[in-house]
């Protein structure tokens, strides 16, 4: 189906693996497009209840492939045509999305990780706001997501100084959910993703939707969002199952419906 992305669905989890290992999974136009389409597939596929985005080989993603950058390039158009549609597709997806950061996430690779809901980091992972080193500005939503995750001051520090952030430092900053040892990496990523895939999927989607709205809503408008969100969640089978399981003192079995 894809040439630069591996796409596999296992136990209700869609694994989207950036697959240009010899180029540290650097973005090309094709890779942008294929990541976008893979996310769209996973969003539409009703059997998928969680997404994992990761990289093949030793890097997560090293950002834009600088081999393709030349003097005639309109950087704004590159974002509008290639990166923004990919990030918008990610943003529209109401299923939980995990960035399984297996190695370096640099430049737009870091932007991709920041746009996800969870970041799991391998011990070998690192984050680099590499843009400043080539005289550019973090893009593809990077500066939108970063201050929301770690605050303005830290976001500015990372973006301006462009220093490498190790997995452990990222954990301290609150940038990653968990640091995982290399030996148990794949199993723990799958465990985490499969756990999300057995949770009430619609409620997770509504939590994502309302949290995002909270950043740009008036309080009273937001309370109305709460009411609408809870009305929708209240109509799901998973809500009914959750209440039933509680009454019957057993573990609920959620179907995502």
């Amino acid at each position, binding site marked *: 189906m894809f040439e630069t992305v591996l796409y596999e669905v296992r136990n209700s989890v869609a694994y989207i693996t950036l697959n240009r290992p010899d180029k540290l999974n650097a973005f090309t136009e094709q890779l942008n497009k294929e990541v976008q389409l893979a996310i769209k597939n996973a969003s539409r596929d009703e059997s998928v209840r969680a997404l994992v985005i990761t990289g093949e080989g030793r890097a997560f993603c090293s950002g834009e492939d600088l081999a393709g950058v030349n003097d005639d390039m309109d950087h704004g158009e590159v974002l509008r045509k290639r990166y923004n549609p990919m990030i918008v597709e990610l943003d529209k997806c109401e299923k939980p999305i995990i960035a399984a950061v297996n190695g370096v996430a640099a430049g737009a690779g870091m932007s991709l990780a920041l746009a996800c809901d969870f970041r799991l980091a391998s011990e070998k992972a690192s984050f680099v706001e590499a843009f400043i080193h080539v005289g550019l500005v973090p893009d593809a939503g990077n500066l939108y997501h970063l201050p929301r995750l770690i605050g303005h001051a830290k976001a500015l520090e990372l973006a301006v100084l462009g220093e490498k952030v190790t997995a452990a430092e990222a954990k301290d900053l609150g940038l990653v959910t968990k640091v995982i040892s290399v030996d148990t990496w794949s199993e723990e990523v799958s465990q985490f993703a499969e756990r999300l895939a057995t949770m009430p999927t619609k409620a997770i989607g509504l939590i994502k939707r309302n949290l995002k709205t909270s950043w740009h809503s008036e309080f009273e408008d937001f309370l109305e969002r709460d009411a*609408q969100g809870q*009305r929708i969640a209240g109509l799901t089978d998973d809500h009914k199952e959750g209440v039933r399981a509680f009454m019957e003192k057993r573990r609920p079995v959620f179907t995502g419906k």
Partner: protein
Amino acid sequence: MSNSFEFIETTTQGAIGTIELNRPKVLNALNTKMISEIVQAMEGFDKDDNIRVIVLSGKGRAFAAGADIDEMANASAMDLELLNQFVDWDRLALIKKPIIGAVHGFALGGAFELALCCDLLFAAEDAEFGFPEVNLGVMPGAGGTQRLTKLVGKTKAMEWLFTGKRITAKEALHYGIINQTFSKELLFEETYKFAEQLAKQAPISIRLIKESVLKAIDHSIYEGMQFERKNFYLLFSSEDQKEGMKAFIEKRQPQFKGK
């Protein structure tokens, strides 16, 4: 009401009459027959004493993606003049009862024009509107350039009509094209909640308010105010005015009969 239509489906629920565009396989592409069925159904509801509010929506993934291009791709100017298809659209403007449009997915081209014929519009948060006609070397022909301009003014109307650019629900709300947005899952539920409230209002008041507001669009303020005044006086010959004012004085809820 019997449902003998080919391209729409009509249902009633209490005092609410619903018309659903029903060609979901082609995203409810509008054809001349569908429009004439909509008009026929609207006129039916307008005459039906049990109906107080009309709701218009689309079945399937979208309100409607636009007009049926196949139907007119080979038409000549004379064909269209003689077909005189837009005369049906003129009759939509004569419906007296309030029409609420509920838009999900897309309302493009002719479907956007149809949405603009509604008195109130609600939309799903991810709904999109637009006039893509320009991309096909034509332009709106059922009121698009007129109704959109009256609503939002020349500046944005020109831009949207020139570019064919999609208008998001958020923009549509900002520019006053739609009344409110709802989570896509709740659009129809919330539309019906509103429709039920509207159906409890004094029907003759609603009727004459609609007529007077529409006058404001086309007439001078002087003429409009003369017209409004006559409608205001006219309401004092209704039973509902007596009941409404009596209930107010007696501090109770009024019971309106639409007489």
